[in-house]
């Protein structure tokens, strides 16, 4: 009986097995990059907002984060400002600017502005602002240079590995409490001496048990 397959078919068969494995590895790598990457987590993506509120403008005026995000030190939720907070200044300045029309309409109709959220964690994750603020973790560590954002975007992936990186090594990120709201903070002495000192002073624990965040 004549041979059905040519000799070279052996090589082709081996090569295709190797190729298949390679393909699988590549595909899962791609999937990983896609599902765990900055792109899918909408990092640095600007969303449509009901009013063009610029942190760059307002923070650089010297207005403290807490003027608007009032509950960030005391509760889980940082708080977004009600329309009245905008109007405490804009009832008098830039009163006719088109950019502020949605804000004036919101006040007149007693209808809250519905900001599009850019940061969120899934509902099976428990997150709390106040503990981070009170243990000396700066807004910048999780939200980046907000003072350079004309419209807010998400600065970090907020994936589990992002949280854990700091929960394992808080001394790399901790700052003095009075610097928590500072943007562009530079430690006065090197972080490798300051970090462990603050960790001891603020009694910071390494919270890596699953029930810290999944409760």
């Amino acid at each position: 009986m004549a041979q059905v397959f040519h000799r070279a078919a052996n090589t082709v068969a081996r090569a295709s097995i190797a190729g298949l494995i390679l393909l699988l590895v590549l595909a899962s790598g791609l999937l990983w990059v896609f599902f765990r990457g900055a792109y899918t987590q909408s990092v640095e993506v600007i969303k449509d907002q009901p009013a063009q509120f610029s942190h760059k403008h307002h923070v650089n005026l010297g207005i403290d984060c807490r003027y608007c995000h009032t509950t960030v030190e005391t509760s889980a939720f940082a708080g977004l400002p009600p329309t009245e907070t905008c109007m405490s200044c804009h009832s008098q300045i830039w009163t006719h600017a088109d950019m502020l029309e949605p804000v004036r309409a919101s006040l007149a109709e007693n209808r809250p502005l519905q900001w599009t959220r850019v940061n969120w964690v899934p509902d099976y994750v428990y997150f709390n602002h106040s503990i981070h603020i009170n243990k000396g973790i700066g807004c910048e560590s999780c939200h980046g240079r907000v003072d350079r954002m004309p419209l807010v975007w998400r600065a970090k992936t907020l994936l589990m590995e992002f949280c854990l990186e700091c929960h394992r090594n808080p001394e790399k990120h901790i700052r003095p409490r009075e610097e928590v709201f500072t943007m562009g903070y530079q430690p006065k002495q090197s972080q490798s001496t300051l970090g462990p000192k603050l960790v001891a002073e603020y009694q910071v624990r390494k919270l890596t048990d699953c029930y810290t965040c999944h409760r």
Partner: protein
Amino acid sequence: MRAAPLAAVSLACLAAVGCRQTMDTDPKYEAMEPSSFFSDGRSARAPVAGTVARGELKLDTAYYEGRNGDSFVDTFPAPVTKATLLRGRQRYDIFCSPCHGLLGDGNGVVVQRGLRGPVNFHEDRLKRTPVGYYFQVITNGRGGMYPYGYRIPPDDRWAIIAYIRALQLSQDATLNDVPPAARPGLNASHGESGVER
């Protein structure tokens, strides 16, 4: 042989079900989340008018309104310590300084951008004004100034007022008012004050 396609189809179904990220969004409201159930679209409901939460019965009008009967109180209803002043300074810098200025001279950043009206706390009239009046202005606002009561709890309001009093004193202070130990540092500069924020 019929089993194979059946198994494939059920596997596919399982896989499809597994893709639903139901636990990402539980059927619950998060803070400030809109609601389609209530006509005003708010998931956070206002308590019925007249509701008093436990421990929130505010009978002490001197503390919670700055009044005794019809007149404003002129002494602080709570003790004023150094910690109060430091807290007051921090809260003043957050909530008042954009308009009234870090010094209390009524020349904050927003005024420099065109806002009219914030007063200079160093006017004689305001130095004589009882503390209860300040409390009332912070809580309810006045004229062109919006109310701040919903953002600043009462103990912080008193701390801010204590700090404003300190600012007012500071403008007429002489070297004799400064404890001898602190005098040498005064000539140094306007920079590092050495006071912890």
